[in-house]
């Protein structure tokens, strides 16, 4: 009997323990369930509210909204809310200025240290270059400045990548490669540059018509882009570098130097021209002035001589010999007075005589003086 009672007590104790355990489990499950419901409701509320909000930075980006894949509209600024995915989808495009570098340069190859880079033949597929209208080769570097001005057209017509702000997607198909809008713009620039380069002379492109060259490429690029209806506007195009191949660079430098030397020659000649023009004017003035002075002098002299003659003539008429002798002697004494070297030689009766005179004694004196100073 005691044993029976003991067994019943044990069973009751076990039942009580089982019941309380079950209760604890149910309570725990209930807590977990409530927690899950709260989490799901929270996610649902977040999904229906925050997921549908987006903000557009004016001038920087535009958001295209689709409802079940259909175009709804483009939003260029402000806060907006739509029912989120899968009902609506929001695609953000950059609408500010973007720069796309494009180059026609040879591939970079390892150089020998300490030696200048050497030119070598160009390998198609590795080295990019252009052929000019006169069948020469040049390299150029460009930068396209563009922006998306019509996000709807851009969205509809260009094969923009999954991340519209990122680079073009490289498609991993049998023919791998990008197909996107940046590839399109790069290819259109390639086309424009090749066409324009192939129609111009190398010297024009490298020197005097560089700006014209760039403008022609820009014009052609704008035309092609407009025909694409891709919602892109070409703001500008920079020609950052245009150069001949490395192997021919020295030859082109020699041409530039020759041009500079030729210009220097011409400039020197022009300088000579200006100098001569000034000199000749001075000379002309001098010649005319001399002539005028001569004229004045001659007339004045003639007038004075005439007056002098008239005054002498009156006396001469009265006493010609005396006047002549007096005039002669006066003049001779006046003239001889000025002359330092005078030699009066007596006339011999036979009429023949030898006279030796050392002329220019001043030169000898000067020579002697110089030798003394040198000593």
């Amino acid at each position, binding site marked *: 009997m005691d044993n029976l009672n003991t067994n019943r007590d044990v069973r009751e104790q076990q039942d009580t323990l089982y019941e309380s355990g079950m209760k604890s489990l149910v309570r725990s499950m209930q807590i977990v369930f409530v927690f899950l419901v709260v989490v799901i409701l929270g996610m649902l509320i977040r999904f229906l509210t925050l997921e549908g909000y987006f903000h557009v930075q004016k001038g920087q980006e535009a958001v295209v909204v689709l409802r079940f894949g259909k175009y709804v509209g483009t939003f260029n600024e402000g806060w907006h809310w739509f029912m989120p995915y899968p009902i609506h989808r929001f695609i953000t495009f950059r609408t500010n200025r973007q720069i796309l570098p494009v180059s026609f340069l040879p591939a970079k190859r390892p150089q020998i240290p300490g030696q200048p880079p050497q030119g070598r033949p160009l390998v198609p597929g590795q080295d990019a270059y252009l052929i000019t209208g006169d069948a020469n080769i040049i390299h150029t570097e460009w930068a396209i400045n563009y922006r998306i001005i019509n996000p709807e057209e851009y969205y509809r017509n260009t094969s923009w990548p999954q991340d519209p702000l990122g680079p073009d997607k490289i498609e991993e198909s049998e023919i791998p490669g990008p197909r996107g809008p940046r590839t399109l713009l790069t290819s259109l620039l390639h086309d424009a540059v090749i066409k324009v380069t*192939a129609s111009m002379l190398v010297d024009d492109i490298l020197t005097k018509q560089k700006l014209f060259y760039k403008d022609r490429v820009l014009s052609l690029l704008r035309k092609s882009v407009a025909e694409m209806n891709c919602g892109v506007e070409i703001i500008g195009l920079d020609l950052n570098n245009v150069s*001949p191949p490395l192997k021919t660079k020295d030859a082109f430098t020699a041409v530039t130097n020759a041009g500079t030397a030729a*210009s220097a020659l011409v400039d020197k000649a022009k300088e000579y021209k200006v100098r001569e023009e000034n000199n000749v004017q001075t000379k002309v003035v001098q010649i005319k002035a001399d002539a005028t002075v001569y004229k004045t002098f001659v007339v004045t002299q003639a007038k004075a001589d005439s007056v002098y003659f008239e005054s*002498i003539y009156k006396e001469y008429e009265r006493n010609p010999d005396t006047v002549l002798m007096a005039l002669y002697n006066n003049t001779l004494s006046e003239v001889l007075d000025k002359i330092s070297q005078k030699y009066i030689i007596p006339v011999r009766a036979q009429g023949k005589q030898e006279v030796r005179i050392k002329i220019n004694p001043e030169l000898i004196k000067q020579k002697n003086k110089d030798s003394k100073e040198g000593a």
Partner: protein
Amino acid sequence: MTENNKFFTHWPTVLLGFIVAAFFLVAIFSFQIDETETAIVTTLGTPSEEPVKPGLHLRWPYPIQKVYRFDRRTRCFSGTIGKDGQETSTRDSQNIIISIFINYRISDALKFYSSFVTIPQGEVQLNNWIRGTSLEVFGRYNFGQLVNVDSKKMCLTKIQDEILKELKVKAEPSGIDVSFVGINSLNIPESISKSVFDRMIQERKVQAEKFLAEGKSEAQKIRTDINRKRDDIIAKATAEAKEIRAQGDAEAARYYAAYKKSPELAAFLRKLDSLRTIMKSKTTLILDTDSAPFDVFKMDAEKLKIAGPQKK
């Protein structure tokens, strides 16, 4: 507690279950087509008669129905020749390496699906068409029609138009619209580029010499011109000066009319004037004693009596 009471007590849980189930059902039995896409739905392998338009559409799940989506945006495609270019010959047997690109879009999804099923397969065919057509068209032109400074002789645009026209004809039956053909590169083989460099260097040498020669010639021309001009101006000025001098002489001559009264006296006076002008301090003068007044040096006493002063 009745069944109804249980339902109302746990309605949030039931609603949540419905929502989740609805999501799964919609996901399984519907599909979305974007504005940038077109699609073909096959039912047990049979394609639909019309391409699916953008929007939300219902469908039976796979394997009953299958959706083939095609991107219908313009794709810039250069094929395999876009990488390294393709060597070909022009009509005048000049070797060139060309690379072209095309812009295309799928204009008819049903035709495209019937022809290729997928875009990669379609692009393989398109690549073959590009290669074949570009080789054929470039072979009709001379090298001088690819690069030329004379716009009338330059035919690159014409070549592109011809390739475009032929590609359109080939691609249109397959639902592909080729809208543009452009040139990605126009190169020459490596061996030829070396000879082009040599020619360029030679041409530059000639040009450098030409520049120098032109510079010298122009400089010489400027100098010659100015010298000639200077000589002309001086000649004119000299002529004018001569005229002025002549005027002076003519005017002076009027005063010389007075000399008619005694030409001998006039001549004598002029001689004296000349003596004054000619004789300067550095002149060496040699005279003999026959010249007056030095004749006094040889006079004898008798003559001196006559010539000298008389004693009274």
